[in-house]
């Protein structure tokens, strides 16, 4: 198995690709991994930007299949919260996720964003794109493209302050 690249390097690459965002841009991370990436990405950008977080549990599309409780690790969900410190209407949004796969998380995140107002634009940045899209969602900025066999997944893990990308068998 190939070794996955260093996350700090990937974030630096993302920051370089993004360059200088439009003034007033809000960096919004999707829980949980996207929030970790968004914090570091915002710090790496040349201008200081407002950050927010999205906990998309209540906008997922598999509620009828899995319910709210079984959607995710319970203790995990507890710490997640949507936090939008400013009015997003008319603002440019840089939406950040760790790994993009089916696109369903991004769909849910965009729906939730619109509950807060009408943004001027949304751009999507992700650390890694593992393929397997089921919705017409494409990242504007992506540091790593992977082709992962079905039944395996790439997850972002956090150990202290250190982030690593890891392979997991489902």
């Amino acid at each position, binding site marked *: 198995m190939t070794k996955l690249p260093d996350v700090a390097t990937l974030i630096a690459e993302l920051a370089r690709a993004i360059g200088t965002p439009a003034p007033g841009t809000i960096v919004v991370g999707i829980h949980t991994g996207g929030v970790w990436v968004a914090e570091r990405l915002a710090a790496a950008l040349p201008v200081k930007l407002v950050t927010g977080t999205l*906990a998309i*549990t*209540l906008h997922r599309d598999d509620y009828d*299949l899995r319910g709210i409780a079984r959607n995710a690790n319970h203790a995990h969900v507890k710490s997640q919260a949507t936090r939008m410190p400013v009015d997003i209407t008319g603002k440019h949004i840089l939406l950040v996720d760790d790994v993009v796969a089916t696109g369903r998380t991004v769909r849910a995140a965009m729906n939730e964003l619109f*509950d807060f107002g009408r943004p001027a634009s949304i751009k999507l940045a992700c650390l890694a794109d593992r393929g397997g899209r089921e919705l017409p969602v494409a990242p504007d900025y992506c540091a790593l493209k992977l082709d992962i066999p079905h039944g395996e997944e790439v997850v972002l893990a956090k150990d202290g302050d250190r982030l690593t990308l890891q392979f997991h068998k489902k």
Partner: protein
Amino acid sequence: MPAHPQLDSHGNLKHLLTTEGLPKRLIEQILDTADQFVSIGEREVKKVPLLRGKSVFNLFFENSTRTRTTFEIAAKRLSADVINLNIGASSTTKGESLLDTIHNLAAMDADMFIVRHHSSGAPYLIAQHVKPGVAVINAGDGRHAHPTQGLLDVYTIRHFKKDFTRLTVAIVGDVLHSRVARSQIHALTTLGVPEVRVIGPRTLLPTDVERLGVKVFHDMKRGLEGADVVVMLRLQNERMNGPLLPSAQEFFKTYGLTAEKLARAKPDAIVMHPGPMNRGVEIDSPIADGSQSVILPQVTFGIAVRMAVMSLLAGGDRNE
């Protein structure tokens, strides 16, 4: 055979009928889920799509504007379609039986029934007769239970006091007729509150109330000593002039919450009331509006807790 009619064979919540016997794990799950819903009330768009396309029937066989309204708001914020039926005023007066009413409503493809009934146990009967996948929430049955009120009360306590395991909670007033008190006591003891006290005159306390794991006080000042939470119960109007009580004024003198009596509790004690309150009967106005009162937050949290219960009941593969 499931251990309890409100749980499925995996131990998940299928109906919410009572807090009695409701496992700690499920109570905590409801409270944690409610956390997520509190912030939704503060958004521009106060809605999430979880219950889109589902029909929630509010079946009120007994009048209640507040409880019905908070259930309605909760269901609407979850994007459900809400149908309010004031049954007392319609079919039952024409002689239709409870189960016939339910079968008719089920034929309208209801996904959830919110039931308030003057008879204890009516929501159980309904829960036994609905189709698999249809959930029943007890919104108050007779003197028996009012689980969402009990849960919103423990949610409020957790919000202000964080840890249940060091608390003294005093419940004051007409415990005998109060389904709210019963639901609170079961939830509080399950969550590990070491001391739950009930305070009231002998005529308004159930005879073997100690068996619920509470301490009994007839002297309110002694009962409030060192309490972290003071829960005042509503004295129902119809009881005031009955044989159990001399008068409302007399009751207020002995069991009404005044500044003087509240001073016996801890300085940071919170004051709760399930509403609607009778000022000057069970609670003095300055206390109801005072800095220790959390009566209005209770109402706000009640919506989030009801959203949590509904979203836990309506989602997922519930066909067993």
